[in-house]
């Protein structure tokens, strides 16, 4: 009993301190962020958190050195009298059910005015459904499964390019490579059985068919594998000209290790971001994955440019180089905060209206999109990306299209 009393008193004390703090401090805007902070995707989730923290740092403090970049010049959100942004993080533990519960908690208990997250497409799917039910804007920066914006949702906005955009980029890239002499007659598509893996695989397959390319050989496997030897041997036997990998980090590392062990080098590997963009993938097995192609919308840019400065700040927070996923998450968060600022209100309906009216130009972005403008489904219609290559095993460089390329693409896949 005594213990309960003490807890009760402590609770009351905490609440009164909290209330007192609130009354005297400036207004804060509470935004919820759902990411896999533990579980098998924790590496990606913690990088996401570092990205959001960097964005908050830029928004809440004056950063005139970032020039035209929205929200950077003044401290806080000017549209709300300099209000500071506060992010409440929740851990989805890599589970769609947990992601949903945590979103509910953020909305009903933390009273967040908007949400971002949740990395894995399968969890973004369940988390955003809760936001939709409660009428809270949910801005996603990184999940690419096509169906997320096909549900007729009114409160869901997605800034990133989606699977079909990337599938078209792969097609154009492969056709260009073919014109340059590469063989692309047979394609294998290795993907896990998560929402992300299956949906990207089906989009890539249908876009390839429609574009007159070979129908990819489908190599599906269960995510978080203990072993992938059989899949690699299947590839070794079928000898596809191009292997497309749609996997999260743990499996991506295992595939690279197993390909080396079984001495399998396809002429070309294209990775669909996620696992292959995780900085810990590059550190762990970059040296034995040299020449892998990947998609990206992020590029550091010249020294001293706003993007380079942001990348530096991010590195200080996370200890790692900025990668495409973290950059897309950060951009998504900026889009949300820019809309809140423009709305000049924390009323969810006004934020929703502001998001619908979003019209950002390329020079207002930290990432290589042609802009940000949402269609009726909440999808950014100006999202874009390039093909990058891990040429030296340490850093990705842009190799396609020619206009954005830092270096020409190198063929064939070198491996180790």
């Amino acid at each position: 009993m005594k213990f309960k009393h003490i807890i009760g008193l402590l609770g009351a004390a905490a609440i009164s301190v909290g209330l007192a703090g609130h009354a005297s401090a400036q207004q804060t805007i509470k935004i919820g962020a759902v990411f896999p902070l533990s579980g098998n995707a924790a590496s990606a989730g913690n990088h996401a958190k570092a990205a959001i923290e960097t964005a908050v740092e830029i928004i809440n403090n004056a950063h005139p050195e970032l020039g035209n970049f929205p929200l950077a010049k003044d401290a806080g959100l000017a549209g709300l009298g300099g209000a500071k942004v506060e992010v409440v993080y929740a851990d989805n533990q890599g589970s769609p059910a947990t992601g949903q519960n945590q979103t509910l908690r953020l909305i009903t208990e933390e009273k967040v005015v908007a949400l971002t997250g949740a990395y894995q497409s399968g969890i973004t799917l369940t988390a955003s459904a809760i936001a939709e039910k409660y009428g809270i804007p949910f801005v996603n920066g990184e999940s690419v499964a096509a169906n997320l914006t096909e549900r007729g949702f009114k409160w869901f906005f997605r800034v990133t390019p989606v699977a079909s955009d990337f599938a078209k980029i792969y097609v154009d890239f492969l056709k260009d490579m073919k014109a340059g002499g590469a063989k692309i007659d047979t394609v294998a598509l290795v993907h896990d059985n998560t929402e992300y893996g299956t949906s990207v695989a089906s989009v890539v397959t249908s876009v390839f068919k429609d574009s007159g390319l070979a129908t990819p050989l489908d190599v599906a496997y269960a995510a978080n594998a203990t072993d992938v030897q059989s899949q690699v041997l299947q590839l070794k036997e079928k000898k596809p000209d191009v292997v497309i990998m749609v996997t999260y980090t743990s499996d991506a590392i295992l595939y690279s290790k197993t390909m080396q062990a079984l001495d399998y080098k396809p002429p070309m590997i294209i990775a669909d971001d996620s696992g292959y963009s995780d900085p810990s993938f590059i550190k762990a097995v970059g040296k034995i994955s040299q020449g892998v192609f990947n998609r990206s919308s992020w590029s550091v840019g010249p020294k001293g440019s706003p993007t380079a400065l942001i990348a530096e700040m991010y590195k200080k927070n996370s200890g790692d180089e900025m990668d495409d996923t973290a950059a897309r998450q950060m951009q998504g968060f900026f889009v949300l905060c820019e809309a809140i600022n423009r709305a000049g209100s924390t009323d969810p309906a006004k934020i929703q209206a502001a998001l619908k009216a979003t019209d950002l130009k390329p020079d207002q972005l930290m990432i290589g999109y042609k802009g940000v403008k949402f269609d009726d489904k909440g999808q950014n219609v100006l999202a874009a990306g390039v093909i990058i290559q891990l040429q030296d095993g340490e850093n990705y460089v842009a190799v396609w299209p020619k206009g954005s390329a830092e270096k020409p693409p190198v063929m064939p896949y070198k491996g180790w």
Partner: protein
Amino acid sequence: MSTILVQVIVGGLLLGAVYALFSSGLTLIWGMMNIVNFAHGDFVMLGMYVAFVIWTLFGAGPMLGVPVAALLLATLGIVVYFGLIRSIMKGPMLAQILGTFGLALLLRYAAFWWFGANFLSLPENIVGGTFDIFGIRIQASRLLAGVVALLVTGGLHILLTRTSLGSKMLAVAEDSTAAQLMGIRPDTMQAIAWAIAAGVTGIAGALIATFFYIVPTVGETLGIVAFVTVSLGGFGSVPGALVAGLLIGVIESLSAYWIGAVYKDIVVYSLFLSFLWFRPQGLMGKS
């Protein structure tokens, strides 16, 4: 048989040996004191991190990593026995299950806090690369793990069946009051069992680290296989775990190759369940 098929089977056997290696510690604890150690996968994880730390500090491979992991984990096993297991063994079944489950979470999140969430990896050539025998590729690191699996299984089997320490341990497992009357200290024997089981699991982790990624949640990925291996082999049977591990490894590889990787778990688990239907005590367990 095509070279690829032979490769699939060889790969399955090597994978199975690894399954057996990291299951032997679990089956020992199970057989000795009827406790399910849910923290088992996380012991493997700690063994992997020990190997990684040894490599970063001294640039040394499993030659040093394995003994250090064995020693550290054995110590941890004794600490866990006296700090946790001894008291929860007196409690209800549920306390035993939740106790080791809590330990699993403690170790996992301690690893998150200390090592961070990033995936780590040892250099690929830390155990002498890969052999090529008539077109069949054999990774030295997996072969080493397989050989050690055989040695450990053999060693544990001899210990339990041929030595007086083993007889004392089994006596305690059978009837701890009677053993006590014969002048055997159950506490000492069970602490030794935990030390051996955790030490062997440390060895397994340090070896698996040479060809697998290292991350705080890796115990989750590997843990389930250990439970299946132990129940198929027979609770408490060390040779049973070896046979079961090899069997699961080969069935997994073949079904992934023939039917498709996404279906391999369906094949493995339906065979597993139908086998338990006929022989619930497992391959070599006592009924």
